[in-house]
C-alpha cells in the first residue's frame, strides 16, 4: 500500500535555537486516520504546517501522496486540504460565499464552485445558515464550515489540526462522525489532538510527540498495552502511608505504579477486577483513602509512563511570534 504521507529525519529550529522538531520520521498508510498526539507546543502544528507546504524543514524530507513537499509544493497543494486550530473563514462573508471563494481559488468554474458550495452546506448541515454572514455562526458551525472549506476540492489528503479543541462534547461527536465518513470515502487524514480519547476513537495509528520528538508509535491498543491496560488511581489520606500502600499493591500492578505526592496511579491488566483487588489490598492494610477511581489511561498517563512527566503545556512563552510551534 502506498503512503499518505512520509517524513524522514525532519528537523526544524526556530529563532536560531529553539528546536521545534528533532529527527522526526513518520509514515502513514493511505485511506486511514493517523493521529498525532501531544501537549500544546510539542510540535504537532509545526509538522502539519510543513506537510501542508506552509513551512520548509531545515533538513530532512517530506512527501505527501508520494510527492515531495518542498520540491513540488504547487502539486501538493492541488491534492490536500487543511483545517487549522482556528476557523480560518471570513466573518463578513456568508458561509456560501466562503466556500464559493475557495472553489474559485481551486480554479473551478463559476458553476462548479457554486454546486460544490451547495453540496458542502448540505453535507455539513449548514443549508439554513448558508446565506448568513459567518460572524453570526456559533463556534461549532464555524468549525464545520472551516472543515467544509478544506474539502472543497475533494482532497485525497486532509490535515486536521486540533479540529475539536474548544468544542462542546455534542459538537465534538458530530465532527467525529464527519471525519469517520470522510475516511469511508477514501480520504487519508492526519489528525492532531491533545486528547488520547479522540485519537483512540478515530485514529488507526497514533504517534506520540513530546518536545519535538516522536516518543511512541503504534495503534491505540499498543500504546495502552505499554501502560498495561486500565489504570486505578487513588489518593491516600495520610502521606506517611504512601509507601505502605505501594507495597500492598505491587503484586496487583501490571507495571510500576507512578507516585505524585499522595496520588498513586496503578496500571492494571483487567480493569474492574484490578480495581477490586486494589480496594481489597488497601482495606486489608487499613489504609484510608481520599479518592479512588478506575479509568482508561489518559494522555497524562501515557506521558507519565513514557516520559515520567505529566503532559505539560510546552508552548515556548519567550516569544509570541507565529513561528513558535503551537501543538
Amino acid at each position, binding site marked *: 500500500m502506498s503512503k499518505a504521507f512520509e517524513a524522514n529525519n525532519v528537523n526544524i529550529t526556530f529563532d536560531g535555537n529553539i528546536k521545534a522538531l528533532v529527527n522526526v520520521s513518520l509514515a502513514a498508510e493511505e485511506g486511514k486516520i493517523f493521529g498525532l498526539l501531544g501537549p500544546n507546543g510539542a510540535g504537532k502544528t509545526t509538522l502539519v504546517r510543513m506537510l501542508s507546504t506552509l513551512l520548509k524543514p531545515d533538513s530532512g524530507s517530506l512527501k505527501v501522496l508520494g510527492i515531495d513537499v518542498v520540491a513540488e509544493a504547487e502539486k501538493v497543494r492541488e491534492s490536500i486540504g*487543511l483545517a487549522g486550530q482556528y476557523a480560518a473563514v471570513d466573518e463578513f462573508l456568508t458561509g456560501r460565499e466562503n466556500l464559493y471563494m475557495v472553489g474559485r*481559488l481551486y480554479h473551478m468554474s463559476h458553476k462548479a464552485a457554486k454546486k460544490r458550495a451547495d453540496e458542502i452546506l448540505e453535507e455539513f448541515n449548514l443549508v439554513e445558515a448558508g446565506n448568513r454572514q459567518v460572524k453570526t455562526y456559533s463556534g461549532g458551525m464555524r468549525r464545520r464550515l472551516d472543515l467544509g472549506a478544506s474539502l472543497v476540492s475533494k482532497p485525497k489528503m486532509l490535515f486536521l489540526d486540533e479540529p475539536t479543541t474548544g468544542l462542546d462534547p455534542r459538537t465534538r461527536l458530530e465532527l467525529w462522525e464527519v471525519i469517520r465518513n470522510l475516511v469511508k470515502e477514501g480520504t487519508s487524514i492526519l489528525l492532531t489532538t491533545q486528547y488520547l480519547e479522540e485519537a483512540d476513537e478515530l485514529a488507526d495509528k497514533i504517534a506520540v510527540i513530546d518536545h519535538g520528538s516522536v516518543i511512541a508509535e503504534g495503534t491505540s491498543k499498543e500504546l495502552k498495552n505499554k501502560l498495561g491496560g486500565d489504570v486505578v488511581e487513588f489518593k491516600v489520606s495520610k502521606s506517611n502511608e504512601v509507601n505502605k500502600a505501594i507495597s500492598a499493591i505491587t503484586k496487583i500492578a501490571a507495571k510500576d505504579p507512578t507516585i505524585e505526592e499522595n496520588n498513586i496511579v496503578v496500571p492494571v491488566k483487567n480493569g474492574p477486577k484490578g480495581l477490586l483487588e486494589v480496594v481489597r489490598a488497601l482495606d486489608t492494610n487499613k489504609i484510608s483513602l481520599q479518592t479512588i477511581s478506575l479509568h482508561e489511561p489518559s494522555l497524562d498517563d501515557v506521558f507519565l509512563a513514557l516520559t515520567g512527566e505529566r503532559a505539560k503545556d510546552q508552548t515556548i512563552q519567550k516569544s509570541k511570534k507565529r513561528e513558535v510551534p503551537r501543538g
Partner: protein
Amino acid sequence: MVNTMMDTWAITKRNLLRYIRLPQLLFFSSIQPVIFLTLFNFVFGGALGQNSPYGAYINYLLPGIMIQTTLFGSLNTGIGLAEDMGKGIIDRFRSLPLSRAAVMAGRTMSDMLRNVVVMAIMFIVGTIYGFRFMNGFLPAIMMFVTALIFSFSISWVAAFVGLTVKDSETAQLAGFVFIFPLTFASSAFVPVQYMPGWLQAFANNQPVTHAVNAARSFALGSPMNSAFWYLLAWVAGILLIFVPLSIWRYRKS
C-alpha cells in the same frame, strides 16, 4: 496568467464584500477625508490662499489632499493583510493552489477601488467649496489617475510592512510613521519654497511632491509636466522592489 487574474479577482471580490458589509468602516473612511478637506480649506485657506496663482486655496488644496488621502487609504492594505494573517486566513490561502501574488494583488486592487470611491466623495465636496478644474476633461481624469497609481504603488509597500509586522495595529502605526513626514514635507499643503533649505532638498526630491505637483498641473496648470514622468519612475521603482519583496514575505510567512 489567466489563473493569476482569476485568483486576484476572487480575492478582490472578497475584500470588496467586506467593505460593503462594514458600512460603518466605509462611512468613517469617507467622512475622514471630508473633515480634512473642510478643516484645511477653512482653517488655512484664508491665510494661505492670499497670493495663490490658482485663485482660491481650495484649488491649490484639493489635488494635494487627494494624494494625501489616497496614500492613507493605501495603508489599509497592510492592516488588512496583517489582520488576515492573525486570523489564519493567510494560512488557508497559502495551502491552496492559488497564484503567489494573488492575495496581495487582490488586496491592493480592492484598496484602489475603495480609493476611487473616496476620491469621488472628495471631488464632490471640493466642488461645493469652490474647486474647479482648469484644463478640461482629460487632464482632470489624469489627476485622479495620478493619485491612483501612486497610492497603488504605496499599497505594495504597506503590504510588505503588514506581512512583516504581522499585527494590524503595528501595521497601522508603521504606515503612519512613513506617510506623515512624506505628505507634510511635500508640496501637498504649502509651497515647498517656504521650507528651510535642508527640508526643501528633501521635499523637492521625494515622490509625494512629484505626485502632488503632477496632480496639480493636470488640474490647474500646464497638463504635460515633468513631475508626472518623475512620478512614473518612482512608481515603477517602488513596484519593482516591493512586489517581489511582499511575495517573498508571503511565501515565508
